C-alpha cells in the first residue's frame, strides 16, 4: 500500500515549553474539592464560577440529541426519565450530580447527560 504523507504533519516541535506562541491558549483555574463535605456541596464553588460555560455545553449536547431525534416533546420526556436515572447512579456520584444541578439551576436530566456522555458517544 502507498501511504501518502499527512498534509498537516510537521517536523517534531522543539522549545515549546514553557508553553508559548500560537498553540498556547492559557492556563486553567485551580479548585479544591473537599471530600469531607456532603457530596451535594463539593462542587458548589467550581460550578458556580463556571455556570454560564456549563450551561452552554449542556445546550450543545441537547441540540446534538435533537439533531438525531427531531422531536422536542420526546426529548423533553426523555429528560425527565434521565433525571430518574440519577437515582440509580452509585453514591456519591448521584448526590454530587444533584448538587451540581441545584447550584446551576439546571434540569437534573441535563446534568446527568453531561456526566454520562462518554458512554453514549462511544459508538
Amino acid at each position: 500500500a502507498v501511504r501518502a504523507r499527512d498534509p498537516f504533519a510537521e517536523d517534531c516541535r522543539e522549545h515549546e515549553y514553557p508553553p508559548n506562541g500560537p498553540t498556547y491558549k492559557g492556563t486553567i483555574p485551580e479548585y479544591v474539592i473537599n471530600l469531607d463535605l456532603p457530596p451535594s456541596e463539593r462542587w458548589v464553588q467550581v460550578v458556580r464560577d463556571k455556570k454560564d460555560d456549563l450551561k452552554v455545553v449542556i445546550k450543545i449536547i441537547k441540540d446534538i440529541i435533537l439533531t438525531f431525534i427531531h422531536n422536542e416533546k420526546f426529548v423533553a420526556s426523555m429528560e425527565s426519565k434521565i433525571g430518574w436515572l440519577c437515582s440509580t447512579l452509585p453514591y456519591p456520584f448521584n448526590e454530587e450530580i444533584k448538587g451540581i444541578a441545584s447550584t446551576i439551576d439546571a434540569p437534573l436530566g441535563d446534568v446527568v447527560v453531561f456526566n454520562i456522555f462518554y458512554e453514549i458517544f462511544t459508538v
Partner: protein
Amino acid sequence: CTSIIAEDKTGKLYHARNLDFGLFLGWDVQNSSWYTTEKLKPLMVSLDFQKNNKTVFKSANFAGYVGMVSGVKQGMFTLTMNERFSLDGGYIGVFEWLIGKRDGWWMSFLTRAVLENSTSYEDAKDKLANTKLLAPAYFILGGNKPDEGCIITRSRTSALNIKNLDAKNNDWFVVETNYDPWKSPLIIDDRRHPAMNCLNKTGQEKITLSGLYNVLSTKPILNKLTVSTTLLEVSEGHIETYLRDCPDPCSPW
C-alpha cells in the same frame, strides 16, 4: 486523545496527554474549529481532591463532570483514559443499566474511584483491568517505579490486552491514541506514528515533561480537536494543564 508514558534513563516516569473531544459535533466555518471543542475549553479546571485538608489526588477535568479522565496520586500512580470506539459500545451498557442490569461501572466513575481509593499501581491496574464497564475504554496507567507503565485495552467485560513498559528491551515509552495497540491506526488518523517518531528523536536520555509537551505540540498529535495538554509526574504528585489552539494549517482530527 493521545496519552504517553515515558521512562528516562534513571527510571523516572513521565506521563502526558492531549485531551481531544468534539469530532463531528459541529464545525464552525468562520473560525475553522470544532464548535464543541471550543466551548469545552472554558470548562477545564484543575482539581485538588482533599480529605482532612490533605491531598488525596489531583486531576484536570471539566467543571461539573464528576468522573475523572486524568489524574495523579502522589507517589503511587498517574492515570489517563482515552476513548475507545466499538460497536459493542456504551449505548448497550446504558440500555442494560436502564433495564436493571447494573453490575457494570460507568467509565469515569471507575477512574474516579481508583484515584480516590487505590493505594498502589498494582491495585489500580487490577481494578482498571478487571472491573466490568458499561463502555469500552483505554486506560493509560503509570506507576512510580521503573517499568510501571501500561496501556489497558478494555472491552465492556474484560481486558483485551495490557501493553507494559519494558525499558530494558528498549520499550521505554508507550503511546495510546484511539486505536488498539496491536492494530494499525486508521490511515487518515495516524497520530501514533508521529508521536513515536518524535519520542525516538527526543531520546530516552533527554525525555522530561517539557519533551513530552513538545511531542504533544506537534501536528497532527495537536489538532483541531485538542482541548488541553496535561503533564503528570508521580513522585511529586505534580499536574499542570494548558489550553491549546491549533492554528491553520491544522488537521481537523
